[in-house]
């Protein structure tokens, strides 16, 4: 009896307290309509106060990158808040550099709108939209890599630059999450977005994408990314990739040769073993067609007994060092694991290249 009474009275008390808090929340956390000004009057919006900046931007179809879904862990949703954002919160300081804090960069998912707010975001991000697509094909490239070809439904076309990426919406038990994948199809196929996806054991995004079948629907936002291909045809393009880092590089190479058929370009691709090699024949075909395009694949692991390989061996930065002459004007695009990028950057700097763009994963 006493137990029942205890439980009932404590539960009653808790319910009463919760009710009191809910009423208070309704009355207090109501900041009315606030002005949200983007890029000094370019896009004035009116939003309900009390929500986070990220949620307000998404509600108004401004898709800034965010991989963690507003938990404050990925640090992708950085925007410049000129006024009205309040001071930097302890949850943000871990993900912002000192320089960023000085120049008013904030995490949009942590900034709560309490008053009129003035923000600045890169022009590119205003063109980002949510696309609905249908899976056209899903092809195995290697034992853990798939090439997934998406045909756009709405909007029917995407305008992107080579090297950019999209954020695929994947379902998860805690609601949809977004995962970034580079576009591997060239920019002259505006109704197609092709992705190269490596299956990460336990990964939400890659498991979802690997299980897709032709005819399934996929949503993504994009395009994101700041890489700009050097338009000067005398500048040599160097692409260095590892694993699914080939995706943006494939896009760059096809787009490049569509526009400048005799431009010089080197592709260096690092794999572990022969079972990781893909797209090699496709690129060799391309190299036959365009004599200024050079393909170098290198295997880093010892060759197994049943493996046949006539290309380079060792880590990819050794091949970069071996093939490139110093003193040529170059632009480099690197995409792969951090250690590879570090090693290749060092080699390229020795060769006198400073225009290096990289995408780490």
């Amino acid at each position, binding site marked *: 009896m006493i137990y029942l009474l205890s439980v009932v009275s404590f539960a009653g*008390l808790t319910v009463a*307290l919760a009710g*009191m808090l809910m009423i208070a929340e309704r009355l207090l956390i109501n900041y009315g309509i606030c002005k949200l000004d983007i890029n000094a009057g370019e896009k004035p919006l009116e939003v309900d106060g009390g929500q986070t900046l990220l949620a307000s931007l998404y509600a108004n179809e401004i898709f800034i990158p965010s991989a963690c879904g507003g938990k404050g862990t990925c640090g992708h949703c950085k925007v410049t808040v000129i006024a009205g954002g*309040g001071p930097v919160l*302890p949850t943000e300081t871990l993900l912002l550099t000192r320089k960023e804090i000085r120049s008013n960069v904030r995490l949009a998912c942590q900034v709560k709108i*309490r008053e009129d707010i003035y923000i600045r975001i890169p022009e590119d991000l205003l063109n980002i939209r949510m696309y609905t697509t249908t899976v056209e094909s899903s092809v195995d490239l290697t034992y853990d890599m798939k090439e997934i070809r998406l045909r756009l439904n709405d909007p029917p076309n995407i305008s992107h630059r080579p090297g950019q990426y999209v954020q695929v919406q994947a379902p998860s038990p805690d609601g949809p999450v977004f995962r970034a994948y580079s576009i591997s199809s060239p920019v002259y196929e505006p109704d197609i977005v092709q992705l190269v996806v490596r299956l990460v054991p336990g990964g939400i995004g890659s498991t979802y994408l690997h299980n897709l079948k032709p005819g399934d629907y996929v949503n993504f936002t994009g395009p994101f990314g700041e890489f700009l291909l050097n338009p000067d045809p005398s500048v040599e393009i160097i692409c260095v990739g590892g694993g699914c880092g080939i995706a943006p590089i494939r896009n760059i190479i096809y787009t490049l040769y569509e526009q400048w058929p005799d431009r010089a370009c080197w592709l260096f691709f690092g794999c572990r073993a022969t079972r990781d090699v893909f797209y090699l024949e496709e690129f060799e075909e391309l190299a036959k067609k365009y004599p200024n395009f050079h393909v170098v694949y290198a295997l880093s692991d010892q060759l197994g007994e049943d493996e046949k390989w006539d290309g380079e061996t060792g880590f990819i930065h050794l091949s970069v060092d071996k093939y490139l002459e110093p003193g040529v004007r170059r632009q480099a695009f690197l995409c792969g694991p951090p250690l590879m990028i570090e090693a290749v950057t060092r080699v390229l700097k020795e060769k006198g290249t400073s225009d290096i763009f990289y995408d780490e994963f």
Partner: protein
Amino acid sequence: MSETSTWVIFIAAIFTNNILLTNFLGMCSFIACSGQIRTSIGLGTAVTFVLIMTTIMNYVIYHFVLVPLGLVHLQFIVFIAVIAAFVQLVEMFVERFSPRLYFALGIFLPLITVNCAILGASLFMIIREYSFIQSIGFGLGAGIGWALAIVLLAGLRQKMRYSNIPEPFQGVPIAMVVTGVLAMAFMGFAGMVSIQ
């Protein structure tokens, strides 16, 4: 029921029986938030407000719900629940009406929930068998006493910023030592009034 007059309880709670300097309750936010006088005044006010309100609420709940139903053993969990809910409420108020103070207090505002001075005051009120009016006097006094102590320490620490403190004592250690000295100074009030 305690016979002491409410006025005496009030004064005693501030000076002779200061909840912080004699019972050493609520030390964590006391040390962490006493860097600046401004912040400490804010936190002191918030704690005082929460303390007096929760003492009243807990008094009512204890004497009109727990005692009649014979559920006195639930007092700890009930008091904590009431305090937690009330702190949430205060947090909403501060966020709405003084965003500056809200950001200055940061994490210490929700941490008032686990400020033991607040639970301590509610428990003292029960142990010492205060009446309703006496409880209000005690809650207010304990809150003001806590606020007074943190503001005094903040003032001292602000001055100490320019003193030449030996390296191992810089920061929290010297604050603890100063708190001890402050507590001894408060012993000078002993004999002025007294409660058990």
